[in-house]
């Protein structure tokens, strides 16, 4: 079973609200008092660097760019393994904000092992459950940017797969 799949109370397969790994992270944050939540966000932000590509890793898609709406260059790297599971790596420029760094680490861990389609279908309403409404402000909206970029690269991968399948057919 996919890491992203889960069973409902009756044991029936139900569409997952969130991938299991991400769900655990969400529940962790929701259980924390505000001060500890902030500390945990900072801790995740400090782990963002660990999500960078490692020597020898190969990716089907790489998307490194500096967009208008983000402070610095953000790179997204996608590897889809032989089982169709996505593995994301990311690089962040030095100007990227703390919340965005934290969200990078959270998403790389929380979405690891999902299929590209599951990532594309993921709702974004979990963000406030992780960081809390107080920290999500107009000038912090770039936390959604990371999710948008990850979904974007997965969408490109899916489109290419579909195009390749159509050619074969």
């Amino acid at each position, binding site marked *: 079973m996919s890491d992203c799949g889960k069973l409902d109370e009756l044991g029936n397969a139900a569409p997952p609200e969130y991938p299991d790994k991400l769900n655990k992270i969400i529940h962790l944050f929701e259980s924390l008092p505000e001060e500890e939540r*902030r*500390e945990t*966000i*900072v801790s995740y*932000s*400090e782990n963002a660097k660990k999500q960078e590509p490692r020597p020898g890793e190969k990716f089907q898609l790489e998307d490194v760019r500096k967009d*208008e*709406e*983000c*402070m610095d260059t953000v790179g997204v790297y996608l590897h889809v393994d032989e089982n169709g599971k996505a593995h994301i790596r990311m690089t962040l420029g030095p100007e990227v*904000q*703390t*919340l965005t760094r*934290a969200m990078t680490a959270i998403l790389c861990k929380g979405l690891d092992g999902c299929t590209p389609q599951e990532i594309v279908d993921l709702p974004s309403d979990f963000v406030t459950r992780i960081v809390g409404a*107080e*920290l999500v*402000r*107009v*000038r*912090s*909206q*770039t936390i959604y940017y990371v999710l948008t970029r990850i979904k974007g690269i997965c969408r490109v991968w899916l489109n290419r797969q579909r195009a390749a399948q159509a050619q074969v057919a």
Partner: protein
Amino acid sequence: MATNPSQYAHPEALVETDWLEQHLDDKNIRIVESNEDVLLYDTGHIPGAVHIDWRADLQDAVIRDYIAPDKFAELCSKNGITPDTTCIFYGDKANWWACYALWAFRLFGHEKVKILNGGRDKWKAEGRPMTKEKPSVAKTNYPTPKKRFDKEIRAFADEALAQSQAKKPLIDVRSPGEFKGEITHMPEYPQEGVLRGGHIPGAKSVPWKTATKEDNTFKSADELKKIYLEGCGVTPDKDTIVYCRIGERSSHTWFVLTYLLGLNNVRNYDGSWTEWGNKVGAPIEKSA
């Protein structure tokens, strides 16, 4: 051009990183960090620094306005500040938010204020000490300010309109693209809900960054005089209004004009473009 701080009108309004490192334990000062990145302080800050959040601490939760004087007194008391405490502000983005917090403190009449020249980035780039430890400060009993100095250092939309109609100095400190009306948000920022692009008629474009050097410190007094006094008609005998999108970048320019050039009649229009660009009946000019 080399900077000689003594040439500024109020050189005492700036402290250098060297000086601050030697005064970290000075009981008469309170170091205040204020950033755009709301969690940056939590990742590490200057030892002893307290954090003032430009939105959660300084702005009213319901009305688009600053906190009431009693809340300001609470904020200062909580952070161990008395009316005699010298508050030294610093932060990210070349001190935008530090200047904004300083301006808000002046709004409540707190007089002993300074900026750390170069801000957080310079301090960090120089390898000076940082800590995650939040200081334990003794609570004070800051008296509730009797008034807010809105009339003296703050401008409202009707005053900005009157300034425009009277052809008095108005300085738009946003990016050139925002001034021209090509974009309605800062480059690298999300759209923040402004309907129309352009600038207040008659405003001169002097992006805030014009006042700083590469290391985020302020340019010399002579350079600043050329930019503002010779370059855009600001003079001590005329009122000047500065604005941006929400008043934070213009606080930086307000600090330059007020403290470094010594003009006494500069006001910050904090409603700025997020108000003017949406305001019914407000005239807008666009330019190439």
